[in-house]
């Protein structure tokens, strides 16, 4: 095979240390007639041009480039080969600059090592195979799971590019957690005012026709891989038609059945047919099948009688299963809060007037159970409120991480309490205070300058103990300096750690997507790719990946969309790199060792043929399975056993 060796002098960087003539001689001794050429700078335009010309003129079939690190210019030189009409994989680089010339003191020994390395590359490159990129057709559409801020932003961004988005939301409402908040840190912007335009865009905006919103739905199965997934989605019946319903709420009043309203944290009642809360979007009620008299086989239909629109209430609605093809999936299912009952010293669930932050948000919401008034169970305005920060966060006995948002909403609460019931005493019990960012300080300063606010720092949440006394609770504490004291609080607000959403585990299984030690969906890389999961084509947005505020959730939604817009381009095929693993099914014994070794779940098992199969789209070419296979049935393209052994053999000769 006619092999050309191109020796880059790299100015004097290489040629000062390595004697090209001697290298040529040592090569010629082993490979008589080898084509050897020195070039000043191969990476320069002229250098590349010269090599290209030389390759063609001399009918070179295999190429060795002795130059700098392949980490810098391997791709440049591969493109150069392509331009010269050669398959780009028929080349081997020798890193003479970084790993020999610059680090070897004696010129003789540097020259000797360079010669040895180049000979070994020549030996290896003989075995190189021309590899071809594969191309497959893709579907540019996306499935977004969860319609909170992160999911909404992703859906809108992708839909805006003209693609279809399937937006699956478990609950009957969209908007996620923040539609339940009256005001938002850091600017005290009104929550619904901020989110409603975004939700209106989703429902009726310019690109709404690209978005298929499925509420009360869940993803039950996903097959396929990046570019071509098929998802099964199960949707519960709503019994109200979102499209014909005009949202007048005439149906609610006549309904004879009541129950606690989970959308208001069970702080008030709702009917069997209800809106989660006033202003909830989509603007159509839903019927709780288990409570509805008619659906339970009884005689009622009062809601249908009250409805001014024909066919808006549909008792014959039933569960639907959809199958959708998409190219990418975004997980945006948000998070939950730590169960405060796990800290019994705080009295949650046992004593009255103790609420989680999420419950307290509903007290302050004008569409909440108290119409936005902060009231104790006795119906009076509290004269003192204690806010306990870091409940379960930064605590080795509970959650080791800082949830990052609690201080900020605690200061938001401080602000709102002061406005709503001026003069209320507010106690902040905290372990650490965390208020990063350029806007967040102002609520903090506001709280600090509130003459009625007292800050008490504790070392361990076990140093707080809440007991009930009459209508007020008493908090006994030991602060960080060891000083003990007690305060009365008519109301307690607990700021629990942000934890993974209840359904993370279930969804993680369906999507085969890894979760981290805490149960949050695990990102591909914490700094570089935090919006990408470990499975290609599955992206992460919002608090399903880590606790974060709305700003970050929205940004991550955009980031996830960005990956999809640039990775799955309409009209372009998906390129699959050929440096990956290939199973030789004749040799495969069906032991499945490779399946466990693959970090990308790229290998599956054909149960009929009892052979392993590598999915080209998912394989990243690390070669771990190749080394793991006890039957040597997997070939690592471009890093085959033969190629590597040829390299070793010549180095040691």
């Amino acid at each position, binding site marked *: 095979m006619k092999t050309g060796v191109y020796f880059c002098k790299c100015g004097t960087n290489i040629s000062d240390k390595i004697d090209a003539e001697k290298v040529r001689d040592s090569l010629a001794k082993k490979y008589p007639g080898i084509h050897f050429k020195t070039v000043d700078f191969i990476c320069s335009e002229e250098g590349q041009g010269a090599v290209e010309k030389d390759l063609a003129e001399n009918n070179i079939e295999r190429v060795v480039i002795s130059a700098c690190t392949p980490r810098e210019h391997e791709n440049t030189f591969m493109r150069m080969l392509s331009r010269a009409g050669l398959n780009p994989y028929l080349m081997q680089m020798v*890193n003479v600059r970084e790993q020999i010339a610059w*680090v*070897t003191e004696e010129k003789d020994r540097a020259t000797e090592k360079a010669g040895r390395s180049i000979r*070994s590359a020549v030996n290896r490159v003989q075995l190189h195979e021309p590899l071809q990129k594969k191309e497959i057709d893709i579907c540019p559409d996306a499935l977004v799971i969860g319609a909170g801020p992160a999911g909404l932003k992703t859906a809108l961004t992708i839909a805006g590019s003209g693609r279809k988005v399937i937006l699956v939301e478990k609950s009957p409402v969209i908007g996620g957690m923040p539609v339940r908040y009256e005001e938002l840190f850091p600017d005290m912007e009104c929550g619904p005012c901020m989110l409603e335009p975004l939700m209106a865009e989703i429902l009726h905006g310019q690109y709404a026709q690209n978005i298929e919103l499925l509420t009360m739905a869940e993803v039950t199965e996903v097959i396929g891989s990046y570019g071509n997934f098929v998802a099964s989605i199960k949707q519960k019946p709503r019994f109200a038609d979102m499209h014909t319903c005009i949202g007048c709420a005439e149906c609610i009043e006549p309904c004879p059945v009541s129950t606690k309203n989970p959308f208001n944290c069970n702080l008030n009642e709702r009917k069997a047919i209800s809106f989660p809360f006033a202003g909830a979007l989509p603007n159509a009620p839903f019927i709780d099948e288990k409570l509805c008299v008619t659906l339970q086989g009884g005689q009622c239909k009062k809601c249908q009688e009250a409805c001014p629109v024909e066919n808006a209430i549909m008792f014959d609605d039933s569960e639907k299963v959809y199958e959708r093809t998409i190219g990418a999936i975004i997980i945006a299912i948000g998070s939950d809060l730590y169960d405060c009952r796990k800290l019994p010293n705080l009295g949650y669930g046992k004593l009255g007037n103790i609420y989680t932050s999420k419950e307290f948000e509903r007290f302050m919401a004008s569409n909440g159970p108290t119409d936005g008034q902060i009231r104790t169970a006795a119906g009076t305005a509290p004269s003192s409120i204690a806010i306990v920060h870091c409940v379960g966060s930064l605590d080795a006995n509970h959650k080791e991480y800082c949830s990052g948002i609690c201080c900020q909403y605690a200061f938001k609460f401080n602000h709102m309490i002061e406005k709503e019931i001026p003069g209320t005493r507010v106690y902040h019990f905290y372990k650490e205070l965390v208020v990063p960012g350029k806007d967040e300080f102002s609520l903090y300063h506001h709280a600090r300058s509130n003459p009625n606010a007292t800050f008490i720092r504790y070392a361990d949440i076990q140093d707080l103990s809440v007991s009930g006394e009459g209508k007020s609770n008493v908090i006994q504490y030991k602060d960080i300096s060891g000083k003990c004291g007690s305060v009365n609080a008519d109301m307690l607000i607990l700021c629990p750690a942000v934890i993974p959403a209840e359904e993370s585990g279930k969804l993680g299984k369906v999507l085969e997507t890894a979760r981290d030690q805490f149960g949050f969906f695990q990102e591909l890389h914490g700094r570089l790719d935090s919006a990408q999961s470990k499975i290609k084509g599955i992206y992460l947005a919002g608090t399903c990946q880590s606790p974060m505020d709305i700003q970050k959730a929205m940004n991550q939604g955009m980031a996830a969309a960005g990956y999809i817009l640039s990775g799955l381009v309409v009209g372009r095929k998906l390129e699959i790199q050929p440096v990956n693993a290939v199973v030789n099914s004749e040799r495969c014994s069906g032991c499945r060792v490779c399946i466990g070794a693959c970090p990308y779940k790229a290998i599956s098992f054909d149960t009929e043929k009892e052979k392993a199969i590598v999915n080209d789209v998912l394989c990243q*070419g690390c070669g771990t399975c190749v080394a793991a296979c006890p039957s040597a049935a997997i070939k690592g393209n471009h*890093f085959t056993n033969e190629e590597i052994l040829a390299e070793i053999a010549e180095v*040691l000769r």
Partner: protein
Amino acid sequence: MTDNNNFEPKIIGFLCNWCSYAGADKAGTAQTPYPPNVNVIRVMCSGRIDPQFVLKSFEQGADGVIILACHPGDCHYKEGNFLAVQRYRLLLRMLEPFGIEKERCRFDFVSAGEGDKFVRLITEMVDTVRALGPMKIPAQFP
């Protein structure tokens, strides 16, 4: 040991592309000198290193083998280096019955920033193997 002073060991270094190979490049850009006895074989991930590569290296005359990987948790392919560690332990057990000193086969972690560590490891390895003297390959080596 003095008689080994003129002995120049031949050592094969298996480096993964992402961290340890980049660490070696870092030593290069810093132009920190180290002995030229180690010839580097680049693989994409330390998980690709088949124990037979190491055995073959010894069989064909290597006096030592050094395997360098990304630090735990840093593997570009997530967990290839864990498998590499497991295989390395297995390798040591395979070498033992042949009387091959375990110091001739070393495993370590080098990050893309650790040019200095790379230089230190290579220098140590060369010194160690030089002190051990040339490898005497047993007759019935696999």
